[in-house]
């Protein structure tokens, strides 16, 4: 117990480079696999999985020699992207069990078990949970539990897949471990053999200072390992700010149906990581490596946060179908912007909302149909400019947030309704129109309660018209679509302007006009350009 850590688990994935490849291609788990590097004929084996090692394949062998030793050997090039993704996946899997981790090496994670026993039980239960989490992200791990990181690391290498060293019994357990079961630098291993050392107990019995004097820092580290003493500080690992999965392809994929299984595999791994961390994806970014050497990148903003691989594959497929790459694909990388998963979808009395998967699928299809710019939730902009609105992404709010926003909106709307009540004094009809227009200009019925607000159907863009006016009031409107129409009744002007401090200044007079064809329009006179236009029709 050097730095306050009482119980530590070491999660270790053997032959990590091979495991990373197996994670991308699960079908290779049962076959002898060698991860190779270098161009032929200088291709060398970097790492081999268990069946290949059983066949005699070792790191450093030439490709030809490995093939002779193990005839059915499958070779895959080393993929830094796949290893990095697997390394992050293992860390995130461990993070779902304990918040305090140390990224010791590729495929080796130290997990602080302090405080976890009340949650998950004994050391063996926690170790089994760690192993399950690692398997959920596609990695087979061994777990050792001890009082120190050094002892736990040794325990993870030898014995059963879940190896718990009893508290206080680490020294005895380590003493029996043969030196040959561990990896040592070649000069150290030769020296130990020359000295006749066979177990860690033999090494631990030697004086530490003497080992340091003869073998240098390597000797000191070996003695610490044999005695199970940690002398380096704990370096905590925090979750990365990006979530990415990638897969390189040995062959070129020229069609979308061929690409879909690859997307499915990559997204499946990414979603498993998200599920382990209790997160959901908000935005997906896919980056396709092309045979021409370039890249094809697309971004998919999800309507509802998801971690369902099937739905995400469908959405990505739609996006790539709408924007196909210019050449065959040789690699796929998908990253996700994540948000926290909500614990509850809504209240008992909350009206039902579409399932996130259904909603995301419908929105993706609508986007494909009418374009991304034409789908979303309308939002009124903070401006007095007429028709100041835009679209934002459509997000289903939970019940509590909606209740808050509804109260805020109701408070904001109440005074507007009071202002808009029709109980104010009215004018007598001063219209040049027909007798029926006089009825139109009658007093408002104060005895009737208005059901709501009169809506405007907007013309976008506003339609330019020619207006004959007398004393500034419109008398006749010439519309290219409807012809020339007399103004039966008009009200106005409502003079508004804005943005005078900017280059986009606007100033207009608005009129409400009842025309001879029984329609009521909002007419606008642009005071800057002295032109008229129809803004919309009251309906």
């Amino acid at each position: 117990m050097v730095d306050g850590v009482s119980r530590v688990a070491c999660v270790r994935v053997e032959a990590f480079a091979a495991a990373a490849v197996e994670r991308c291609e699960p079908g290779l788990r049962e076959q002898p696999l060698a991860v190779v590097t270098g161009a032929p004929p200088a291709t060398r084996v970097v790492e081999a999985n268990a069946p290949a090692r059983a066949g005699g394949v070792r790191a450093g062998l030439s490709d030809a020699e490995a093939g002779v030793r193990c005839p059915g050997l499958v070779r895959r090039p080393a993929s830094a992207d796949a290893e990095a993704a697997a390394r992050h996946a293992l860390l995130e899997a461990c993070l779902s069990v304990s918040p305090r981790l140390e990224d010791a090496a590729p495929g080796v994670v130290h997990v602080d078990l302090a405080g976890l026993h009340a949650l998950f039980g004994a050391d063996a239960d926690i170790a089994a949970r760690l192993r399950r989490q690692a398997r959920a992200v596609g990695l087979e791990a061994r777990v050792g539990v001890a009082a120190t990181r050094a002892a736990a690391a040794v325990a993870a290498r030898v014995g059963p897949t879940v190896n718990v060293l009893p508290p206080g019994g680490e020294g005895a357990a380590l003493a029996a471990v043969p030196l040959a079961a561990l990896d040592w630098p070649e000069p150290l291993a030769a020296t130990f053999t020359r000295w006749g050392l066979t177990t860690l107990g033999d090494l631990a019995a030697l004086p530490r200072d003497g080992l340091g004097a003869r073998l240098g820092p390597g000797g000191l580290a070996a003695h610490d390992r044999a005695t199970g003493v940690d002398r380096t500080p704990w370096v905590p690992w925090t979750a990365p700010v990006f979530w990415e999965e990638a897969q390189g392809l040995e062959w070129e994929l020229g069609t979308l149906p061929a690409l879909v299984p690859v997307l499915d595999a990559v997204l499946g791994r990414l979603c498993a990581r998200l599920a382990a961390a209790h997160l959901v994806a908000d935005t997906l970014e896919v980056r396709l490596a092309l045979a021409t050497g370039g890249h094809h990148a697309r971004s998919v903003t999800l309507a509802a946060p998801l971690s369902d691989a099937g739905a995400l594959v469908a959405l990505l497929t739609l996006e790539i179908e709408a924007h196909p790459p210019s050449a065959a694909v040789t690699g796929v990388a998908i990253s996700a912007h994540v948000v926290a998963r909500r614990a509850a979808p809504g209240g008992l009395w909350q009206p039902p909302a579409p399932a996130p998967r259904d909603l995301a699928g419908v929105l993706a299809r609508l986007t494909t149909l009418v374009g991304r710019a034409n789908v979303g939730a309308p939002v009124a902009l903070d401006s007095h400019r007429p028709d100041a609105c835009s679209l934002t992404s459509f997000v289903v709010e939970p019940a509590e947030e909606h209740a808050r926003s509804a109260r805020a909106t109701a408070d904001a709307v109440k005074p507007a309704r009071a202002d808009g009540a029709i109980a104010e004094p009215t004018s007598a009809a001063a219209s040049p129109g027909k007798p029926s227009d006089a009825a139109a200009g009658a007093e408002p019925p104060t005895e009737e309660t208005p059901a709501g607000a009169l809506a405007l159907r907007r013309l976008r863009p506003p339609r330019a018209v020619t207006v004959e006016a007398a004393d500034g009031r419109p008398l006749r409107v010439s519309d290219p679509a409807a012809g020339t129409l007399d103004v039966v009744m008009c009200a106005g002007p409502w003079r508004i302007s804005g943005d005078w401090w900017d280059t986009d200044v606007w100033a207009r007079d608005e009129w409400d006009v009842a025309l001879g064809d029984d329609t009521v329009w909002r007419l606008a006179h642009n005071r800057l350009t002295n032109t008229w236009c129809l803004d919309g029709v009251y309906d």
Partner: protein
Amino acid sequence: MLVDRLLRQGAMTELVGPLSSGRTSLLTLCLRDVTGRGALAALVDTDHAFDAVGAAAAGVELRRVLWIRAEGHRRHALKAADLLVRCPGFALVALDLGESPPRLSVGAAYRLRLAARRSGVTLLVVSARRVVGGAAALAVAARRDRLAWAGPGVLPRRLAGMRSEFHLVRKQGAPSTAEAERVWWTA
């Protein structure tokens, strides 16, 4: 309450009328009612005519409205409505076909009706003339009744309101009646 009678879960309702008849005001009222109780609504806007600022002032919870702008493509609007009406969870799917509604085959209309019934979504079709025929469980025709103008002087300074008259044109399983309802809208 007019909206309660207009919106029936899992049914298709048709609202027709000329310009300035009050049909869009009634549509906005339906959106306010649906979003006000926390449910979701979708609006397929064929002619890009929806006044979002005015709707917000009228009390519509814009964040609970999914706005699809078909930019004049009527086939896209029908396809969008078909997609939405098959997605359970929307309390209201409003299809505003504008002033030039497309011809809709009887088969297409009944498919929409069946989809609405299966998903429990209320489909409200708003247009200048009837397009879905007998597939609509309820058809209401709107017309303008009168206008009210306001202002301190002789000449009116603003449009104060409009009264609309809604006639029941068709009600599934009931004989046609001369039932009508008058509604005031404030400008």
